[in-house]
C-alpha cells in the first residue's frame, strides 16, 4: 500500500485543497528549533515558510520521531520531510527528493579530553564508535577501510549518539556536520568537539516527498526562483551556512 494514491491524480491539488502542507521535522539546530521566545525558527523553517508562501499554501510543522519518518510519510500523516534530510540511494527507493539545497558532510565528534588521542582517522582504529542506525554516518564508518576494526554500535538517533558520547559510552561518533556544529561547545555538550581534519563522505540535503508526488516539481520551481533572486542565500547567511549552500550549488 502507499498513501499517495488518495491524491492519485495530484499531490499538489490535494495539498492545495487542504490549504496546508504538513511538514515533518525534528527539533534540530540550526534547521528547525524553538528560539528563546518559543517560536519555531531555523534555516529549514524559514526556507519552508518562504516556499509555501510562494505556493499559496500554509506551512504546518509537525514534530515527528525521526525513527519513524518513512512511516509518517507513507501513512500521509505528513506531506514531506524537511529537516536536513540527507539524499541517499536507499532513500530514493522510498521517497522522491527535490533539488538539493545544502551540502552535508559527516564529521567525527569526540570528547575534548581525547583531542590529543584522536587526531586523524588512523588513530580511531580501535575506538568505540557509533552513528545513527541507517544514516550516512553509519555508511561512512562501515565503508572506511581505516575503520574496519573499530567496535561499532548503532544508535537510534543522532541525538542519542551525542548523549551516549557525552556519557563516555563511545569514544567517537559520526554525525551531520550541521548538527555537530550547532551542538559542540553548547550547554552540557561544551566538552565535545569536531575533529576537523578527518575528512568524511559528503552528501546533499534535499526535501523528501512521497514517491511520484508532483509536489517535487512545484517546489523545485520555487527553489530555482529563490536561488536566482538570492533570497535562499540570505537565509543561509543568517544561519551561517553560506559555505554549505555554495558547495551544494557547485555540485
Amino acid at each position, binding site marked *: *500500500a*502507499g*498513501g499517495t*494514491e*488518495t491524491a492519485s491524480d495530484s499531490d499538489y491539488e490535494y495539498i492545495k485543497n*487542504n490549504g496546508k502542507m*504538513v511538514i515533518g521535522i*525534528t*527539533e*534540530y*539546530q540550526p534547521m528547525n*528549533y*524553538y528560539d528563546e521566545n518559543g517560536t519555531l525558527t531555523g534555516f529549514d523553517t524559514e526556507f519552508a515558510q518562504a516556499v509555501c508562501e510562494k505556493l499559496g499554501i500554509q506551512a*504546518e510543522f*509537525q*514534530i*515527528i*520521531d525521526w*525513527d*519513524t519518518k518513512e*512511516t*509518517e510519510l*507513507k*501513512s*500521509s*500523516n*505528513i506531506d514531506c520531510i524537511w529537516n536536513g534530510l540527507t539524499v541517499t540511494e536507499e532513500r530514493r527507493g522510498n521517497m522522491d527528493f527535490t533539488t538539493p539545497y545544502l551540502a552535508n558532510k559527516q564529521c567525527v565528534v569526540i570528547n575534548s579530553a581525547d583531542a590529543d588521542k584522536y587526531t586523524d582517522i588512523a588513530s580511531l582504529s580501535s575506538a568505540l564508535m557509533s552513528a545513527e542506525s541507517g544514516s550516512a554516518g553509519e555508511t561512512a564508518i562501515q565503508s572506511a577501510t581505516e575503520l574496519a576494526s573499530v567496535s561499532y554500535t548503532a544508535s537510534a538517533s543522532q*541525538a542519542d549518539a551525542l*548523549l551516549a558520547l*557525552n556519557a563516555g559510552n563511545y569514544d567517537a561518533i559520526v554525525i551531520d556536520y550541521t548538527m555537530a556544529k550547532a*551542538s559542540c561547545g*553548547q*550547554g*552540557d*555538550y561544551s566538552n565535545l568537539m569536531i575533529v576537523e581534519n578527518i575528512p568524511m563522505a559528503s552528501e546533499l540535503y534535499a526535501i523528501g516527498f512521497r514517491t511520484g508526488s508532483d509536489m517535487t516539481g512545484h517546489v523545485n520551481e520555487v527553489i530555482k526562483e529563490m536561488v536566482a533572486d538570492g533570497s535562499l542565500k540570505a537565509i543561509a547567511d543568517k544561519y551561517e551556512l553560506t559555505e554549505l549552500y555554495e558547495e551544494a550549488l557547485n555540485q
Partner: protein
Amino acid sequence: METFIKVTLQLAGGFGTTLALFFLTLLFAIPLALLFAVFAGSSIKPLKYLMRAFIYIIRGTPLLLQLMIVVYLPGIAFNAPLTKWQIFGGNVATSYFCGALFAFVVNYACYFAEIFRGGIENIPKGQYEACAVLGMTRSQTFFRVILLQVIRNILAPMSNEVVTLVKDTALARTVSVVEIFFAASELLRVQFIIWPLFYTGVFYLGFSALVTLLFNMAEKKLSKYWK
C-alpha cells in the same frame, strides 16, 4: 537557578499534555471497560468470545505497538491518514494526541474490564439472593446494592493499574505527542541540557504518589463502612 525555573516551566508544559492524556484516558476507558466487562460476561456466546479474544489480544501485545498501529495504519493500509481526519479542527498535533488517546483508551479499557469482571464475580451470591427475596428489580439490585461493593472490591487493583497508566503516558512520545518526556528530550536536542531528562522522574514520582494517596483515601473511606 534561572535555568532551573525555565526548565521546570518547560517540563510543566509537557506535563500538562501528560496530565491531559492521563485524565482523558481514565474518563473514556472506564465506561468503555464497563461495556467490555458486560460483553465479556454476556450470555450471547459469539459476543462473549469475540470480546474475550479482543481483550486477550490487546493485553498480549505492547501498547507501543498499538500506538503505532493507530497512528500509522490508517494512512498505510486505508489511505486515510490520521492527521487528515480533521479531528477537532484538524491541527496535526491534536490528531496525534487523539490517536494516542484512542490507543490508550482501548488498551486500558481492556485491563479495567478484567478488573471489573473480577470485582463483580467476587460479590457473594447471597447479596443477589437477598435482593431478589426483598423484591428488588435487577437494576435496583445492581445500582443500589452491588455497585458500591464492586467499587470497593476493585479499588486496590485499579490503584495499581492507574499508577501504571501514569508511567505509560511516557510511551506517547513515540508517536510524536509532546508530553513531559518528549519535552525533556527537546531540551537535550536543542539546548543540550541533559539533567531535565532525569528531572522528569520527580514529576512522575510526585504524580504517582498523589494517585496512590487518593486511592488510599478512597479505600479508607469505604472501609469505614465495612471490612
